[in-house]
């Protein structure tokens, strides 16, 4: 009921009157003093990074252009955003699980497109890559419903509704424990509950530092997980641009996990991305290390760096440079460095001792590592020793090097800071296929872990 000229009349009558006025003057009636703003909902509103969310707009005029946009600030303070253009349904709703985007950061029906389609906002620093450093806090996503087919920069004048959602790497009850023991540098994540738990050793690439988010997510899914640093960390010995640890270091890390009272010593897997693949294979090759399974993502079966069997400084990585290639923007591709022909023969891991299943994940557009070739090499090696039943390959067309947990954006290029000079490195991967690869591979990784670590 509203008061019109002092008289109380039912609002639907007023609506009809307004509709008459609309027909006369044309245009779509969005908001007025009579009708409040439309509604945007996200469900679940607090989710884990690998959970899907359902984003919907309600109480909109039918068959009208709207934009849904998402904005998020990284831990470094950079703004990332994505947007998609829709036309509302006859019932005045838009539903990202049902409706196709007709323009924006992605096209077609992609329920999670606003997440994996995030890009640095205009004016942001160059060469960014989205990586969560502080896993104990969520990403806070502000999602807005805008009038018309517009870009996020027009949000102030077109915003109809908004909703805030949180995206977490850590489930409630997950415990984060910094490990600095016996020279080993890492972070252990334990699931809630009494334990003991099956576990993963989590290895990343030459970017270095301590990357915790995948481990945090494994713990949120019931596995103890240990992120290990081996290069580019202040608590590791020697210059930060080199690997100054060898086989004993990685064995200590594995044993640390085995000895942990809340870990099942005979239910530990190893996952490696990029150079982490080589470390994974090398570690598993030791006869006294018996992982339950291995997961290798886009990495080499050998190395141009000579890793010592003692903890010692490795040879300079500049030797690799002869294999670097550049595109016409001056971005470097490291791909050829890990071509089997370029790997030192004695470094190639002999997989004869392997007794556990191995899953190799290939991004076919990987511009940083020769993933296809290395997958072939591993497969051939295992076949030759009658172990092909241990090998599983997942291969994704259009996916790049950085196959990470799902619903996070891929960077085709980003600034690479480990090397002496500032370089932008090519990772590869096209937006939509890479997102699909992350979603599918993550699901398969968890299934593989379930089969090999729980049963």
């Amino acid at each position, binding site marked *: *009921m*509203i*008061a019109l000229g002092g008289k*109380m009349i*039912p*609002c*639907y009558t007023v*609506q009809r009157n307004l509709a008459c006025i609309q027909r006369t003057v044309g245009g779509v009636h969005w*908001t007025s*003093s*009579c*009708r*409040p*703003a439309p*509604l*945007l909902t996200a*469900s*679940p*509103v*607090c*989710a*884990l990074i690998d*959970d899907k969310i359902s984003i919907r707009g309600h*109480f909109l005029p039918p068959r009208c252009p709207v934009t849904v946009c998402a904005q998020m600030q990284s831990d470094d303070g950079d703004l990332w955003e994505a947007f998609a253009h829709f036309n509302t349904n006859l019932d005045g709703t838009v539903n990202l699980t049902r409706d196709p985007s007709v323009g924006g950061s992605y096209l077609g029906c992609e329920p999670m497109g606003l997440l994996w389609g995030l890009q640095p906002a205009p004016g942001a620093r160059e060469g960014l890559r989205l990586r969560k450093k502080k896993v104990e806090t969520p990403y*806070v996503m*502000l999602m*807005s419903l805008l009038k018309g087919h517009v870009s996020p920069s027009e949000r102030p004048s077109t*915003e109809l*509704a*908004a*909703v*805030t*959602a*949180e995206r*977490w790497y850590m*489930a*409630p*009850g997950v415990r984060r424990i910094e490990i600095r023991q016996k020279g080993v540098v890492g972070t252990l994540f334990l*699931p*809630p*509950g*009494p334990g*003991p*738990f*099956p576990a993963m050793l989590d290895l990343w690439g030459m970017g270095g530092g301590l990357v915790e988010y995948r481990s945090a997510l494994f713990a*949120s*899914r*019931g596995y103890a997980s240990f992120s290990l640093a081996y290069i580019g960390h202040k608590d590791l010995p020697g210059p930060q641009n080199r690997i100054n640890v060898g086989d004993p270091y990685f064995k200590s890390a594995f044993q640390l996990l085995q000895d942990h009272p809340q870990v*099942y010593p005979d*239910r530990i897997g190893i996952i490696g991305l990029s150079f982490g693949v080589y470390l994974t294979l090398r570690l598993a090759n030791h006869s006294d290390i018996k992982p339950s399974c291995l997961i290798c993502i886009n990495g080499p079966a050998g190395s141009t760096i000579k890793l010592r069997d003692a903890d010692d400084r490795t040879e300079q990585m500049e030797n690799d440079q002869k294999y670097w290639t550049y595109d016409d923007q001056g971005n470097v591709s490291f791909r050829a460095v890990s071509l089997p022909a370029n790997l030192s023969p004695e470094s190639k891991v002999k997989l004869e001792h392997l007794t556990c299943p191995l899953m190799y994940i290939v991004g076919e557009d990987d511009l940083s590592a020769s993933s296809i070739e290395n997958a072939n090499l591993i497969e051939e090696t295992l076949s030759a020793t009658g172990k092909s039943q241990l090998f599983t390959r997942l291969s994704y067309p259009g996916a790049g090097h950085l196959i990470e947990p799902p619903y996070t954006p891929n960077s085709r290029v980003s600034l690479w800071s480990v090397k002496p000079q500032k370089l932008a490195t090519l990772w590869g991967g096209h937006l939509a296929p890479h997102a699909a690869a992350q979603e599918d591979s993550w699901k398969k990784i968890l299934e593989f872990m*379930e089969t090999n*670590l*729980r*049963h």
Partner: protein
Amino acid sequence: MDMKQHCVKLSVQPSRGLVDEKFTVLVQNLLPGFQLTIHALHQCEDGHSWEAFAHYTANATSIVNVSQDPSLGGTYSGVEPMGLLWSLRPVPGSKTGLRLRKMNVQTPMGVTISVYQGHQKEGFLDQVLLASVVVERWYMAPGVRRVPITEGRLTATLFLPSGPGPFPGLLDLWGWGGKLVEYRAALLASHGIASMALDYLTPKETGRMVDNDYFETAYRVLEQHPQILGSRIAMLGLSFGAGVTLRMAVYSKGLKLSCAVCINGSHVQPIDGPLEQIMTYFNKNVEKTRFDEDNQLICRDLMLPIPTDPSLKVDVGRLQCPLLLVVGEDDQNWPTYESAMDMREMMERAGNSHLLTVLSYKNAGHLIQPPFTPFTRASTFKSVTIPPFTMMALWGGELVAHSRTQEDAWRKTLVFLRENLYGDMKPGALFSNL
């Protein structure tokens, strides 16, 4: 049979949710025929522990899904997706008369869900724990802003939804217990309605009870707020708050409500004179209250029989906005059902019954709260009268029926509010089941 601990996988999705959001509890990798107990534990703000538990037996699929499989016993039975929350009760050995209420809405309610081997009934701390997860239940969605109101004499907190607005507004009133109870307003704001929790029984000035102008001030704060649509303001009241809502909706010149929701209240009150008169009226009839065999106080007869004297009832025939009445038919504290019938009759005679919607629930008691709130049939109650008195109030209701009621009534209340505050208004009863 023994279950290997490394196999058992317990997951609750979502692990962080709003208090009215459903979750799925899944236990996987069990052996067929395996017997287990799923247990929920919550420590409330005043330190008391609440628990719920249910017995399940894994079938051939080796999975137990609480949303699909029946509980064979425990604090609830049958297929009850949210039974682990609404059947929470004080652990053995607790004080009597407890009631679970979250006063700090800026932190979540943490519930530990665990799986134990076998069908256990007690002594959970000594049992074999197979798995455990923590679930957070929030009254405030991310982005909702909590704004303490400092205007005038008001004791109030405003909750604004996230986003630019403008939002419809709502005044949220509780009952006789007083205190500033924020959780329902926080939850309503999480659903897009700017809601003000208003305490009107513990006024800042001593001695005097508030009157109409107090509510008009609160209304004006909403109306004048830059992010609130002044023309779309509702009022929602439980218990005594429902009576106040009706009074304001009909008689206050300063309030123009888009709609009103009254949960387990009554229109019976002296309408001439100040609000304080109501207290006097109740005190006069206090000998009509009685105790049941457990010494629990039943207050519903205070206002019975429903008076015929028009000066003792809010004239709902003059109501000009849609009204939703939520009735717990087993309400032992207020004569809600009888009042609702009388109101319907008054409105039919006056010709405005198209504005009325009545939701009436068998075996539901007085405290109809947001969904999955643990059921309390009776609890210690301290009134705000002077002198205050503490007694064990019988609220009424039966566990399962009341819990279903909370879920259904909340959903329909949200639909009612949204229809009247957001979209086109449909006159008439939306969900009448009478």
